């Protein structure tokens, strides 16, 4: 089934094509192409439903780095299929919606490229079997999300929101990577299937708990769990189709997918149970509680998404308890929580997607999302109102919408789990249903706010940018389809359950028999505790909604100064400032300091190595004899060299330098190197002239008025460098490691037709080097000419400051 891998690659190919198509095809909206790709993928994936429902799975591997066990392995089972269908299905609807939402003046080429990039990355995450490959796709979703949030990059808030989401999700991603590596260390495989198959075999390994915690960190940051939820409300600066797609239906579900996928490995552990359930419940409560106070409808939906994600997360936590007991008829009760989680995962995507689109429509038509300015739109936008009502009532957990079913199952799970009698649930378990119930009340309240504050109440046209009217039909199609799904799932929940959810359960509980995992969903199961809880939610919710002016003051306790947002800003600005201070402390812009770093490194690294390995050797036995003239020449050069440091005028310095140069030429004569001697003499002469000419234009040679302390440092450094240099040179001379290759060139007449060996080497053996050397000279010549002749034009001067 190599088509699986092609399916992952298709969106990437489409992303690469879109910029070209966008330029070529002017008449047709480029979104239609993206939608076509997405729809074809959806149909392709939907064709797997029957075989997946029969319990089959599909896998295909292309070897990538087989020696490291990192291969491009695509794997499709029930769990992957649910996510993949959501990605492509909701994706198609969102693209359809965006075609009408974004005006053709926007840079649509970028938008759909990023969107396709995201779709491919997300499919890669849910269909990868190899942890390394999955990590790559995981980070790719963060990057495409960053690009999409910052789509309106002119706005400061967009850029900041994008940065925040990237920082938080990518840090989590890196933690996850470390977790993956730990899992690899424990199991020796990158394949998730093989890790699951070996689950339980390494639970006592000392890396087991750290790996779990790091993995959860990745999942919690991605799925905006408390306290990492702060990036999600800021991500709402993205265009609404993006919020509907990435930040409610798909990307934020990646963390949940990760938890679900690794439940067979870590589930059954008390830490896993408490972390996933606890963080999920806190997030559920915190998100719903703060959603109520929001004035911006999109911010409200963002908090509500945080809250719903927490709810799904907590249900996966509760379901993991089943693995503690192993497979038995009693433990199957707990797996129902997982089933409910999967069910709500799908439901949430439908009703929240619809709600986001509705809010987008309102924003698009009247120009504001502020609930203080909205009201009374029901009569003017009846279709929009209907969809909003369906979505909100489903979110609130009312019949006849799918949210009612999953909310009831959530209550069942919360009530069942606190009677499980494990993981010290006796002490704390009672809190679970209480938090669940309280959070549901707030959920009910904010759902009502969406419907009543936006669509009912007084219509205030003077506060709106444009008078309210129904949007173009195209914009209503996508949310309409989702709203139909909301109702449809309520009436035929078991269709979804049997074909998608039960096979997915098999992926999460592979050790359990599949028959026990399926749950029949009923809308009505008599007057039991769950229905009373729902009735309680409705009654309390209505009361809280009616009298909310009396208790809204409670939010004043949560001062902005003490929020996680200000902690985030504090950490970011602190890090920026301290890194700037630190960098400025050594990047001084002063050449001398940089040279000092280089020399110090040389002294420590090379000198240290010599002392550490004891490789210094000194032996003068093989040396050539020294004549008197050579002694004199050497001392003259030494004295000339040292005197440069004390030269009073630049003329003296130049002449001393020439002494060195001509001295070297004299040595070349003594060493039987006539070509060198000639060249050196000519070059030294020209150099001296050049120095003299240049100094004519440069300021007078001044005494170095640097502090004595830094002068001493310079002296110590230069002496150490000179000593180490000499020691190395002497050691090298006394330790020849291999035969010289020079004798080869002595055959130069036969090989190159030249009697002068040096010239043959330069002009024949290494002719290419010499040619390039000439190129270097040419470049230097151009450089010299440019420096002297070229003047900056007036208009060029200010370009950099713009």
């Amino acid at each position, binding site marked *: 089934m190599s088509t699986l891998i092609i399916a992952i690659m298709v969106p990437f190919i489409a992303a690469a094509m879109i910029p070209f198509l966008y330029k070529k095809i002017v008449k047709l909206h480029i979104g239609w192409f993206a939608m076509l790709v997405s729809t074809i993928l959806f149909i392709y994936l939907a064709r797997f439903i029957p075989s997946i429902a029969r319990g089959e799975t599909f896998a295909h591997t292309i070897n990538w780095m087989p020696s490291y066990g990192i291969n491009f392995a695509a794997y499709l089972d029930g769990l992957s299929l649910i996510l993949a269908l959501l990605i492509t299905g909701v994706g198609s609807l969102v693209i359809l919606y965006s075609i009408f939402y974004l005006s053709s003046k926007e840079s649509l080429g970028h938008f759909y490229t990023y969107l396709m990039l995201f779709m491919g990355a997300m499919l890669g995450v849910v269909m990868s079997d190899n942890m390394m490959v999955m990590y790559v796709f995981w980070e790719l979703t963060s990057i495409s999300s960053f690009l999409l949030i910052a789509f309106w990059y002119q706005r400061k808030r967009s850029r900041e929101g994008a940065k925040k989401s990237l920082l938080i999700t990518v840090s989590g991603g890196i933690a996850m990577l470390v977790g993956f590596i730990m899992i690899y260390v424990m199991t020796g495989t990158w394949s998730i299937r093989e890790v699951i198959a070996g689950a339980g075999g390494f639970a006592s390994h000392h890396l087991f708990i750290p790996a779990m915690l790091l993995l959860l960190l990745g999942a919690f940051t991605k799925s905006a769990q408390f306290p990492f939820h702060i990036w999600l409300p800021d991500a709402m600066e993205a265009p609404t189709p993006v919020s509907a797609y990435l930040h409610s239906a798909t990307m934020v579900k990646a963390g949940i997918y990760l938890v679900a996928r690794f439940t067979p490995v870590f589930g059954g552990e008390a830490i896993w149970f408490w972390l996933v359930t606890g963080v999920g419940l806190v997030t559920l409560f915190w998100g719903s509680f703060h959603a109520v106070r929001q004035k911006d409808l999109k911010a409200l939906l963002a908090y509500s998404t945080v809250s719903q994600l927490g709810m799904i997360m907590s249900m996966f936590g509760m379901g993991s308890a089943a693995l503690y007991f192993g497979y038995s008829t009693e433990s199957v009760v707990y797996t129902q929580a997982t089933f409910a989680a999967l069910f709500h995962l799908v439901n949430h995507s439908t009703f929240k997607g619809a709600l986001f689109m509705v809010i987008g429509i309102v924003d698009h038509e009247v120009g504001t999302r502020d609930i203080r300015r909205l009201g009374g739109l029901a009569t003017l936008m009846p279709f929009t109102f209907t969809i909003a009502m369906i979505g909100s009532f489903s979110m609130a957990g009312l019949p006849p919408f799918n949210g009612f079913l999953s909310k009831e199952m959530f209550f069942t799970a919360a009530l069942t789990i606190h009677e499980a009698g494990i993981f010290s649930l006796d002490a704390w378990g009672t809190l679970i249903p209480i938090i669940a119930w309280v959070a549901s009340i707030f959920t009910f309240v904010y759902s009502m706010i969406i419907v009543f504050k936006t669509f009912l109440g007084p219509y205030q046209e003077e506060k709106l940018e444009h008078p309210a009217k129904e949007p173009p039909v195209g914009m209503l199609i996508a949310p309409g389809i989702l709203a139909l799904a909301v109702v449809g799932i309520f009436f035929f929940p078991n269709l979804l359950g049997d074909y998608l959810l039960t096979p997915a359960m098999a992926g999460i509980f592979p050790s359990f028999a599949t028959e026990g995992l399926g749950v029949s969903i009923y809308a009505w199961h008599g007057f039991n505790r769950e229905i009373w809880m729902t009735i309680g939610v409705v009654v309390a919710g209505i009361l809280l909604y009616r009298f909310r002016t009396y208790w809204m003051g409670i939010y004043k306790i949560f001062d902005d100064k003490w929020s996680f947002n200000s902690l985030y800003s504090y950490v970011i600005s602190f890090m920026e400032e301290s890194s700037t201070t630190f960098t400025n402390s050594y990047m*001084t812009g*002063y*050449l001398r300091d940089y040279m*000092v770093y280089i020399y110090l490194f040389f002294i420590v690294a090379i000198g240290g190595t010599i002392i550490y390995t004891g490789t210094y050797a*000194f032996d003068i036995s093989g040396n*050539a004899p020294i004549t008197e003239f*050579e002694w004199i020449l050497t001392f003259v*050069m030494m004295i000339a*060299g*040292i005197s*440069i440091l004390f030269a009073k005028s630049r003329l003296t*310095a130049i002449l001393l330098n020439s002494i*060195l140069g001509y001295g*070297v030429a004299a040595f070349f004569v003594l*060493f*039987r*190197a*006539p*070509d*060198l001697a000639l*060249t*050196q003499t000519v*070059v030294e002469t*020209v150099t001296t002239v050049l*120095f003299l000419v*240049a*100094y004519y234009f*440069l*300021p007078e*040679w001044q005494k*170095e008025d640097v502090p004595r302390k830094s002068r001493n440092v310079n*002296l110590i*450094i*230069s002496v150490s*460098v*000179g*000593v180490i*240099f000499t020691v190395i040179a*002497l050691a090298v*001379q006394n330790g020849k490691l291999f035969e*010289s*290759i*020079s004798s080869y060139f*002595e055959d*130069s007449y036969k090989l190159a037709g030249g*009697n*002068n*060996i*040096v010239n043959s*080497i*330069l002009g024949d053996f290494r002719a290419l080097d010499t040619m390039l*050397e000439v190129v*270097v*000279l040419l470049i*230097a*010549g151009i*450089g*010299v000419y440019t*420096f*002297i002749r070229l003047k900056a034009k007036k208009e060029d001067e200010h370009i950099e400051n713009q």
Partner: protein
Amino acid sequence: METLITILAGVLVTVATYLILSRSLIRVILGTAILSHAAHLLIMTMGGGLKIGSVPILGEGNGTFVDALPQALILTSIVISFAVTAVALVLAYRTYQETGTDKLDELRGMKHE
């Protein structure tokens, strides 16, 4: 002989390093010029024995030649270091023309402090 030349090169490296660490741009350039002298002397000593054999031209002497390879390398190096010195000098000239200083601590391109 090799030892003596090596020590001479070491002295020149010390002087060059000290000059490179100075504040004034022209001293730094002078330092690099001296550094290349030291390097040339060093390469010379690295060959197969100084003054053993005749000038490396076929037909000269009795058939043994001094090592020709270091000579070829040095010849390349002399030319390149000449080019580098020339460019550095002109750069210093132009910098002085534009900024009115050749002090490196005044030339740091930062607005801090």
